[in-house]
């Protein structure tokens, strides 16, 4: 089991190193397969850890293994330690499993790109970083994984680096995440001085002794990092831009894994968040706001990937909502199912983009069902799961979160309402996408690329992962049915610190049923609305100019940040350069040389050239000395 954990972590790193060192001497195909196999080996390691944990008793399902001391000075030391417990193993399985399918898919998608090797090296690096993040046994190592994941994201978003838009998007993602890294680091400093360590266990114990303000600050710092990484409001503007990267990247990093790291952090650090209820409420609130805003913006997006990106933002809002309210198990459950159906949607979208020679604008699409029937089915399955129609996976997970919200008192009920509104929006924008792309008459573009049914919808490397994910999207939710059987919840219970069950709230059966009914009902209404607007086109799409503008500009966040952060930074920098640096450098040197020259000139005036002046000076000096020698003893 321990070996499994190390294997899981190191296999992708080995893959990345192998591809880098082999360089051009390996064929592009070989590099692709090295990467894919390394991730599948990691999955094997994760399964081994999973099996190992299953074989242990409930209380013993937490194993820490340390390789060497990473950073140490005097009394403070941080080891290179991995933690194998139910939470980390769950994440390991998701990351390496879904990751493996997506890397396999990339083989077909990226085929022909001249820089395939670099792509696969980066993908392996990413999987390694994400595994480091979820397997870390202390906060510093988690932060290391956190940062490396941000790095891999930068490298992959900016993969087609000759496109200025891609380069800009990569930088934006990295800088926003760096901000989150900074707040997390500050939280860790507090922890170090308060508890003397960054190991999870010891830090959680020590957190109990901290004052409320201090705990709140620590939780806030952690939340800052989580919000940045998971693209929640207010640090969300990087995610839509990140769609500049290749579609498998969007699927892996910006749907299934990296952006869910924030949720993982909250669940992992739940003892701290429980001690800081105001911050937990803030997290839930931000989740609720994000799910609404993202849902609204998704209604007007015309790029197929951006719709799905905003959908991701919205769904992670649900996860934050759940985690913030203490429904950690449900939040993780939704993370799991979301990984399946969101990756499915992205990969299916990738099949569409691939088929249409890199066209991503949905206004140019339509009627694709005839040319790509199986992709249509995959997309339909993913959409149904996303909207939460039973018996697909999304139904079980999303509704469990909403039920927990309902059971959490007044504030929770407010968020519950938001969540329901979100369900309606989800129905509308998801099926808007499906109908616009796949139904109706084939658009001119689709006709162009229609090579007949014999052509197939993509190579097996692309279709097999999609099929696998479709199956998972259907059955993935059957591991937890609210009110009836809870194997997933029980599996995660051991990570609770100081109590039996992980979840802070347990909804009643009535609440479960009511929630499900409402959520499904609203989802179906959403689908119906989408059908009327975009499917059968019986209604005209309402267009209110001001609303449309705001939605299209994504609530003006980008413009706001540009004005608050970027422009002032440029301005201040220019001011500093002109106002301080140039005068300082120029001035000090000319100041010194001018001063030296003037002093020299002044002294030079004493050299009159007259002999008599010199003689007088000597005589005068002698006279003074005589007086001095006589009077002073």
């Amino acid at each position: 089991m321990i070996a499994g954990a190390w294997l899981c972590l190191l296999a992708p790193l080995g893959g990345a190193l192998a591809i880098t060192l082999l360089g051009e001497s390996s064929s592009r195909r070989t590099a692709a397969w090295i990467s894919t196999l390394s991730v599948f080996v990691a999955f094997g390691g994760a399964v081994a850890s999973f099996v190992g944990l299953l074989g242990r008793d409930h209380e013993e399902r937490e194993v820490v293994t340390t390789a060497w001391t990473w950073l140490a000075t005097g009394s403070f030391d941080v080891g290179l330690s991995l933690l194998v417990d139910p939470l980390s193993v769950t994440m390991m399985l998701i990351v390496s499993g879904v990751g493996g399918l997506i890397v396999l898919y990339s083989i077909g998608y990226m085929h022909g790109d001249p820089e395939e090797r670099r792509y696969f090296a980066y993908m392996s690096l990413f999987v390694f970083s994400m595994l480091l993040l979820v397997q870390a046994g202390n906060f510093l190592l988690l932060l290391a994984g956190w940062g490396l994941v941000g790095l891999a994201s930068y490298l992959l978003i900016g993969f087609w680096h000759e496109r200025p838009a891609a380069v800009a998007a990569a930088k934006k993602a990295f800088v926003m995440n760096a901000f989150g890294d900074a707040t997390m680091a500050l939280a860790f400093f507090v922890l170090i001085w308060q508890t003397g360590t960054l190991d999870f266990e010891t830090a959680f114990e020590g957190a109990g002794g901290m004052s409320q303000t201090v705990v709140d600050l620590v939780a806030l710092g952690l939340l800052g990092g989580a919000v940045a990484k998971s693209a929640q409001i207010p640090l969300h503007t990087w995610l839509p831009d990140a769609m500049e990267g290749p579609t498998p990247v969007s699927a892996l990093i910006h749907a299934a894994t990296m952006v869910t790291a924030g949720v993982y952090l909250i669940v992992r650090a739940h003892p701290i968040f429980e001690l800081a209820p105001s911050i937990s409420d803030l997290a839930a609130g931000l989740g609720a706001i994000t799910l609404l805003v993202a849902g609204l913006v998704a209604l007007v997006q015309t790029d197929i990937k951006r719709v799905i990106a905003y959908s991701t933002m919205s769904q992670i809002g649900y996860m934050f909502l759940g985690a913030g309210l203490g429904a950690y198990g449900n939040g993780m459950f939704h993370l799991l199912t979301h990984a399946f159906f969101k990756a499915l949607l992205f990969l299916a979208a990738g099949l569409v983009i691939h088929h249409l020679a890199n066209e991503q604008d949905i206004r140019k699409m339509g009627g694709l069902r005839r040319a790509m029937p199986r992709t249509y089915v995959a997309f339909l399955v993913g959409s149904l799961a996303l909207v939460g129609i039973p018996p697909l996976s999304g139904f079980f997970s999303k509704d469990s979160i909403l039920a927990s919200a309902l059971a959490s008192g007044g504030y929770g009920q407010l968020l519950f309402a938001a969540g329901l509104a979100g369900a309606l929006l989800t129905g509308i924008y998801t099926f808007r996408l499906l109908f616009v792309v796949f139904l109706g008459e084939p658009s001119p573009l689709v006709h162009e690329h229609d090579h007949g049914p014999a052509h197939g919808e993509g190579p097996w490397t692309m279709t097999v992962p999609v099929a696998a994910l479709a199956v998972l999207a259907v059955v993935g939710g059957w591991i937890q049915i609210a009110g009836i059987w809870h194997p997933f919840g029980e599996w995660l219970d051991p990570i609770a610190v100081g109590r039996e069950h992980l979840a802070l709230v347990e909804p009643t059966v009535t609440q479960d049923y009511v929630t499900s009914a409402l959520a499904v009902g609203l989802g179906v209404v959403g689908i119906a609305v989408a059908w009327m607007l975009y499917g059968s086109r019986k209604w005209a799409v309402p267009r209110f100019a001001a609303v449309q503008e705001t939605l299209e500009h994504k609530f003006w966040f980008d413009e706001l940040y540009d004005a608050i952060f970027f422009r002032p930074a440029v301005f201040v920098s220019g001011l500093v350069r002109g106002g301080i640096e140039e005068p300082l450098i120029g001035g000090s040197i000319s100041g010194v040389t001018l001063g030296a020259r003037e002093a020299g000139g002044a002294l030079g005036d004493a050299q009159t050239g007259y002999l008599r002046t010199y003689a007088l000076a000597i005589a005068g000096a002698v006279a003074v000395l005589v007086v001095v020698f006589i009077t002073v003893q």
Partner: protein
Amino acid sequence: MTTTLIVLPLAAALVVWLLPLPGRAVGTLALLVALVEVALWAVAVAGFGFDEGLQLQDRQSWFSDLGVSYHVGFYGFSLWLVGLTVVVCAAAIGYALWVNRERGRAYHGLLLFLMGSIVGVFTAQDLLLFYVFFEAMLIPIYVLIGVWGGPGRVRATATFVIYTMAGSLLMLAAIVVFGLSQGTFSLVDSGTSSNEWVFLGFLAAFAVKAPIFPFHGWLVAAYRESPPEVAAILSGVVSKAAVYGLVRIVIAKFPEPVDDFQVAILAFAAVGLVYGSLLAFRAPDLRSVTAYSSMAQMGLIVLGLFSLTELGVNGAILQSVAHGLVSATLFLLAGMVETRTGTSAFSALGGMARGRPALSTVLMTTGIIALAVPGSVAFAGEFLILAGVYDVGWGWAAVGAGAIVLAAMYMLRLISAVLHRAPGIDVRDEAPDLRAFELLLVVPLVAALLFLSAWPAAISEHSFSIGSSAAEATE
């Protein structure tokens, strides 16, 4: 052993200056000497007892009536600084060999002389000896920039010399007063002093050398006009002489003035950190960005030193080594870009990643470690420093954390400006990727960085021992 490490390059410099060898042969000889130095240093590391204080000492009395002796030796942290020196100087000499500098004998001799004096600075345990080596560092730099530098070299050299000399003269006065009042010039034998003027005299010299805002006027011009490998040594190693001086002399010998002035110095260091980052963000070419980034990093290191906590000081040493390697690599890469395109200005560069995987990988790796991505050694150092300075006040740590974001911005800008988007005006398709010899120069530096990233405890756990007076002074 220590004397060998100091004398070997100095003697080799003499040999190189006197023997009439042709260009490439001189360079090869110099490189061999440098590699032997590295090997000797490795031997010293292998046998070093990190818990035992000052070791590998050599002591000879010099002016016994004044208490001046030739006393050299290693502490844990100075061992790492010397390691940094010999590795970076070896890479620099290799670069000079590769580029085939004119008047090679003079050039390589000067580089060797520089290497020897820097090792002397890091190992000197007597104040007058320290001063001799400190000044001896100046002469080769002055000649190297002044003769082999870029178009603005005369002004740059004059500025550099004036600033440094001003600081050094103040330090000389301070040394004399301190030595006479203590009765001895030996750092090991003398006690502490609470004289603020003497403290300020020392501080002046190190503030110029680091540099600490606002004594940085010499920095940008010097880094821009010097040959790339000299800039590598300057920013990577010479600036760390200030670190050594601050730890070994200022903090260890002046506990009360350090306490009194702590907040002021932290303020200047923090200003330098932010100021350097802001200017790096807008700097128009590779060299200036690296120069301002250097200034910012030195501000961070001084911040760590004057936190006077175990975390902060150890972090400062770790960061010194990390930054030294990073900065040296960046300058060497800048040189390699300049030889291919004739410029380091961003407006003329771009798109160099296409068809040049080696350059792209090395520059990206170095740049990403430079911006202290979590997981890297620069991050470990920065984290320790900020954790340490948090103890003085949370505001300092917040400023430092903000600088992390700024560093991300300016470093990514540097990387993109050189490698990404469309090829710049001066980037020709024929400009080749990094050749094997060039890779041999930078890859060991990058490999060292990656090794330290995997195991930063190598340095942070082995810098200060219980017995060293420097450690006693901190905390």
